[in-house]
């Protein structure tokens, strides 16, 4: 997936000052075939950038092109298709449905493309130490556990780009290692790439390109 930013800037941040290296201040190409790490201090708009790239918002100036198409012009039907088949995301606030069990939350995603059998999904959960949580309501899990469930969920679909928004903020070191291994393994299997935004850490994942906001 070829992404191009040209002086793109969230409208609510247009009066703020950024360094000349910031992605908001220059033109940049996030080439496909590379894994990208975007380092950004708090409040510099990293979640906004992922929101623009996932069709959740379009209040920006400048231009953001996805495969040479301005993302503002992508229709809601096209976004649905992109979210099903081309881009997956782990959001900072997880977005699980708290009243549903872990099983239901994961099945809602897997049912879209039916990529994995139940055993495969349970294996992934086990690798992140959540094998006992299959029938537990997502709302009753700790934040760290919810983060891990949302990581597994993001892997249950085909994608070209996996976007990670501070995915390990509430996870212990050992589980970060296990989760990042699982992410990289699944992403390689799919021949896809990763775009992670982080406050400053790369969590020992290898990135070809690094950017700043």
């Amino acid at each position, binding site marked *: 997936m070829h992404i191009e930013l040209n002086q793109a800037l969230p409208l609510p941040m247009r009066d703020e000052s950024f360094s000349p290296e910031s992605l908001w201040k220059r033109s940049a190409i996030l080439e496909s075939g590379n894994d990208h790490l975007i380092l950004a201090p708090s409040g510099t708009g990293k979640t906004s950038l992922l*929101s623009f790239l*996932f*069709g*959740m*918002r379009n209040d920006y100036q400048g231009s953001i092109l996805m495969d040479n198409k301005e993302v503002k012009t992508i229709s*809601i*039907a096209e*976004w*649905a*298709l*992109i*979210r*099903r*088949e081309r881009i997956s*995301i782990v*959001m900072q606030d997880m*977005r*699980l*449905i708290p*009243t*549903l069990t872990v099983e*239901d939350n994961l099945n*809602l*995603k897997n049912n*879209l493309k039916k990529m994995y059998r139940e055993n495969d999904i349970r294996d992934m959960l086990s690798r992140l130490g959540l094998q006992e949580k299959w029938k537990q309501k997502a709302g009753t899990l700790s934040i760290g556990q919810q983060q891990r469930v949302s990581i597994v969920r993001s892997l249950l*679909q085909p994608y070209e780009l996996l976007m990670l928004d501070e995915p390990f903020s509430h996870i212990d070191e050992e589980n970060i290692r296990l989760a990042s291994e699982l992410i990289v393994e699944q992403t390689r299997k799919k021949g896809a790439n990763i775009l992670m935004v982080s406050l400053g850490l790369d969590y020992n994942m290898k990135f070809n390109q690094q950017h700043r906001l």
Partner: protein
Amino acid sequence: MRKVLLKSQRPLQLIVAMLGALAGVFMLLFSIQVYLDLSAALNAREDLLGSDYLVIQKQVTTLDSFNPESLGFGTNEIDDIRHMNFVEEVGVFESSRFQVFAAITGLPGSREIYTEAYFEAVPDRFLDVVTGDWQWKEGDERVPVILPAAYLDAFNFGFGPSQGLPPLTEKAFKLLTLKIRIRGNSDVFFNGKIVGFSDRINTILVPLDFLRYSNLNFQTRQPTSPSRLILAVTDLSHPGIARMMEEKGYDTNQENLKGSRVKTILLVVLVLFLFIGGVIVVLSILTFIQYGQILISRVNYELRVLLLMGYDHTKLANHYLGYVMIWLAIIFLSAIGLLYLAEIELLKYLKEYELSTQPGISLYVWLAAFGLILVYTAINAWSIRINLRRLAKNLQG
């Protein structure tokens, strides 16, 4: 998916919305059914609630006793009436201009009723008694006669009891012999045959051919202007009729107009019923839309999550529409069921008034039900799609 979409369903609200829709749909369909049933029944027996025929004459005043000619309708006057916009056709009553004596024989106990009488005739198309016996040609001794229906009642409940005669059915009456003696230059005899009783025309009717032949051959008086007219009108409740009657000083059988008023009132009540049904239907559609909106807004977060996962907003809308269709099916099947029961009761009621109609739910009611289903579905589909589209466009929340 159901767990997510209907998570915050409030069964009581849904039941109230469905009952409202059921009431509206039932009222609407039932009033159409009643209208069709009554129309069919009334067309079959038009006279019960007032026919589209009206017999008029002039009001009799004291002065008229000295000048009977003033009670007649002149040619110009008839032409004026014919050109009224509610008048379809005018029939002139022709009267006998000779003396008639009639004797009814064959009554129980060999009794005979003997009376001086008169005849009148109107063109056949104005008659409400349809019979193959209604014809006469020169040389026939047998003359068909139609008596007023009121005469049968007068005989059975007035004359009969006072003379110690038993009541007779219409059929038995038709078997009696009516001996007719016409006194012209010499007496001529005919055998009268009662062929029917008229609700519409309150006189002793004979075929026009017979009356014209008799007047030509036996008349003892000169022709006079007709004193009664029979009008075929578009609608007895037409306000022009009452105006004409008042302005021109005409008189009529009031019962007929009363009947027409009953028909009009009935129609007004039905239209009112239809209107109220329509209002309830509109309100119930709004309630459904609102219920759908509330349902969607209560699972706003869940729907956003689904949309972010890649679910298509139209597919989610179709899920909702699927539930709406199930609710609509329950509503319409219940309405049709109720309609069947109501129709059975209605037919029983109509039968009590000797009105009959085709049993079963009318095709038009089915069409109306189908149309209503389409309207409900279309409006709900539109509203659900709009709501989900709005949500898909604003996933940030």
